[in-house]
C-alpha cells in the first residue's frame, strides 16, 4: 500500500491507524526517519492549527516543535491511547497552543493547568470519531449546518482559548445561553458528520 491518506480516512481509518501505529513504534525506537515521515504527514496541519490559535508565526513554530519533540519522547506511551496518531498529535498541538495564548493573556479566570495530556485524549471511549467523516469537505459542510452563534461559541472556546464564562462576557449573553450553544453546536456537527447520516451533504 502507498502512504495512508489520513485526512480523509473516515471509516477506512483502521488501515491508516495501523500504519500510523507502526510509525509510532519506529518513533519509540528512536528512528529519525519516522519522525521525518510524521512531520511530512502532519506538520503543515499542526502549524496551521498552532497559527490559527496563536496568530503568530514564531509562536506557532515553537508550539509545533514542542509538540513533535513531545511525540518523539513519548511515542512509547502512545500505545496507551486508542485513537489515531493524527488526533493524538494534533490534540497535543492544540493543547500547547492554547497554553501559549493563555499564558500571555491577563485573565480573570484561572486557566486550566498546563502539561499532561489534553482531556480529549483521556476520556473513556474518546474514539467515536471512527464513526464520523472527518475529511475537510464534510467538515466544511457540517459547519454550515449549525447556526452562526453556535459556530462562534465553539470557535471562541476551541481556537480562542476562552472559558464558557469568558465567552458569555465577550458576547454579552447569559452563561446558560453559551452552554446551550456549545452543546447544540457540537451535537449538530456530530449529526452532520455521522457516516450513517441521511443526506449528510456530499456537496456544498
Amino acid at each position: 500500500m502507498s502512504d495512508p491518506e489520513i485526512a480523509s480516512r473516515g471509516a477506512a481509518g483502521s488501515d491508516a491507524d495501523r500504519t500510523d501505529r507502526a510509525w509510532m513504534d519506529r518513533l519509540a525506537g528512536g528512528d529519525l526517519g519516522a519522525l521525518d515521515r510524521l512531520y511530512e504527514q502532519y506538520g503543515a496541519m499542526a502549524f496551521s492549527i498552532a497559527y490559527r490559535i496563536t496568530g503568530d508565526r514564531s509562536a506557532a513554530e515553537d508550539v509545533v516543535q514542542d509538540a513533535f519533540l513531545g511525540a518523539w519522547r513519548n511515542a512509547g506511551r502512545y500505545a496507551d491511547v486508542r485513537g489515531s496518531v493524527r488526533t493524538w498529535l494534533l490534540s497535543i498541538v492544540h493543547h500547547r497552543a492554547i497554553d501559549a495564548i493563555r499564558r500571555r493573556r491577563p485573565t480573570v479566570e484561572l486557566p486550566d493547568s498546563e502539561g499532561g495530556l489534553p482531556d480529549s485524549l483521556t476520556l473513556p471511549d474518546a474514539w467515536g470519531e471512527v464513526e464520523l467523516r472527518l475529511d475537510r469537505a464534510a467538515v466544511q459542510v457540517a459547519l454550515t449546518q449549525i447556526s452562526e452563534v453556535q459556530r462562534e461559541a465553539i470557535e471562541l472556546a476551541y481556537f480562542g482559548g476562552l472559558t464558557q464564562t469568558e465567552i458569555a462576557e465577550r458576547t454579552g449573553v447569559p452563561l446558560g445561553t453559551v452552554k446551550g450553544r456549545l452543546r447544540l453546536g457540537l451535537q449538530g456537527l456530530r449529526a452532520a458528520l455521522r457516516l450513517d447520516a441521511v443526506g449528510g451533504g456530499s456537496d456544498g
Partner: protein
Amino acid sequence: MAEHTFAGLTCSDVAELAPAFVLGALNAGEADAVRRHLADCPELHAEMAELNSVVPALFEAVEPVAPPAYLKAQILAAAAADLETRRAAAATGTPAARPVAPAPGPRRGWDLGAIFRRPVWAAVAAAAVIAAVALGAWNVQLRDQVAGLEAYRAGVVAILDQAARPGAQLAVLTDPAGAGGQSGLAAVAADGSVAIVMRDLAPTTGTQVYEAWLIGADQVPVAIGGFTVGGSGTASFTTTHASMGAGVVVALTLEPREGATAPTPPILAAGQAREQSS
C-alpha cells in the same frame, strides 16, 4: 442513569459541563472536578464521549498555513540531539554529562534545536540591527554571529540530509567534559565521506587547526582532516576516509598545527555515529 456525586459534582452537573469540558472551555477548578468525577464514577457518561468525538473534526475547519521550510530540519536536529542525550544516559547508567534539569519539560539537556529557536535567533538579529547603527568591532562581531548561525543552520540541514541516506550514520558531537558550549553534528556516509558542522568553537589563531578524528573498534584515533575557525565560531567541513564501519566515534581536538598524528587533549567534542533509519 443513576445519579452519583463525586468531586462535588452530580452526574447531571457533569453532563451539563460536558460540551465545555471537551472543548477545554472550563476553568481549572471546574475541569479538575469533572476529571475527578469521571475517574471515580461508575456511569459511562456516554454524552462525554459522543461530544468529544466531534472535536477532532474542528481541526479540518482550520485554514491551511504553510510552515517555514526550515522547521522540519529544526525539529529533526533537536530530536537527534535528544536521542544522543538519552543514549548517553542509557549507556552510562547515569544522567548525560551535561547537567539535566529534572523537570520533564520540552527542553532538557543539550538541545540543538534551542539554538534555532526564534527568540534566540530574533535576539541576535535584532542585536545585529542595533549594532549596525553603532560602530566598531561590535558591529563586525554581531554580523559574524548572524552569518555563523545562518551557516550553521544550513550545515545542519545538509548533514541531516546526508545522514538519511542508506547506510549513513549520524553523530551528535558534544563536549565530553560538559564544560564548553561547542557542539555539532557529523554525518558518516556509507562510502566513508564525513561531513561535520560545528558551532561555538573558539576562533583559531596562528597555525592552530581543529582536527577531526575517527575512532573505530581498535580505539586508535585516525586524523581525517583539519580546519580553521573565524570569529563566527561555526565551521562546516567535509572530508573522506575509508569507511570504519558502524558505531565509529567522531571526535574533535584543537591542534597547534596541521598534520597531527595523535590527538592533543582535551577532546573538545565527540559523539558516536549511528544509523538513523532502518
